[in-house]
């Protein structure tokens, strides 16, 4: 099955604030980025960290964010490794330079 988000896909991270462990850091929630590459599949840490045996296995993606989109300033980029369920396709302004 092809990856849901091929390299170059604009994505947006969810703005969730779960009561349990998550690997979507707070500073990167509800932010727009671009997929760098798929990294391979891994158990969703949000579920496995609760000691549950039913963690779904998902593709993890390296996603690149412009500092300006994360912090409102800065000219660098930050790349995070994010599970597929943290992401949705960013339909809006897909051609934006980031």
């Amino acid at each position, binding site marked *: 099955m092809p990856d849901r988000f091929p390299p170059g896909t604009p994505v947006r991270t969810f703005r969730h604030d779960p009561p349990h462990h998550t*690997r979507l850091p707070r500073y990167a929630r509800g932010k727009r980025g671009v997929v760098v590459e798929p990294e391979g599949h891994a158990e969703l840490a949000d579920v496995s960290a609760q000691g549950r045996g039913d963690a779904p296995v998902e593709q993890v993606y390296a996603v690149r964010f412009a500092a300006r989109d994360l912090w409102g300033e800065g000219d660098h980029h930050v790349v995070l490794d*994010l599970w597929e369920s943290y992401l949705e396709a960013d339909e809006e302004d897909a051609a934006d330079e980031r």
Partner: protein
Amino acid sequence: MSGDHADATIAQRVRRLETLLEDKGVLSGARLDEIIDASLSGASPANGARVVARAWTDPEFKARLLADGTAAVRELGFMEGSYQRLRVVENTEATHNVIVCTLCSCYPLRLLGPSPSWYKSEAYRSRVVREPRAVLGEFGLDLPAGTEITVWDSSAETRYMVLPRRPDGTDGLTEEQLAALVTRNALIGTAAV
């Protein structure tokens, strides 16, 4: 930039957990030591330095290293049996890379050795994603204004290592001599070679 107080609390918790594991008969102290030794055995920045020196002297190895870090370092006998994926990011004149783990302290232990205390500090983890140029400056690394910085925040099962730029004037050096130039900080991206 060291979080002595927090580290002490964690060390206390770890000792308490170890005691409980032994008391409940889950794991003997000797077995725990074996596991810790095995995970650390041979873990040293000399390993990462060897990988870098090979990449500087063998363009085909370098291409393989950048395409699939895990497979390439296994050619040199590193990361065998590891479930983690290694991604090597190359510094160039245009781009500088630096690694961090903002959620905890993930890091390619086998290639870089035990992580320095500043790498685990709240200050480094929170600031390098926000103002990397200033943080690198505090490490004594002043990058030209035109150099783009990418910060790699290891939030899953990938571990990052920086391939630093080969310094000028090193054409006559052997692979071993080149490896001796590469520091742990250069592999993290907080120093140049």
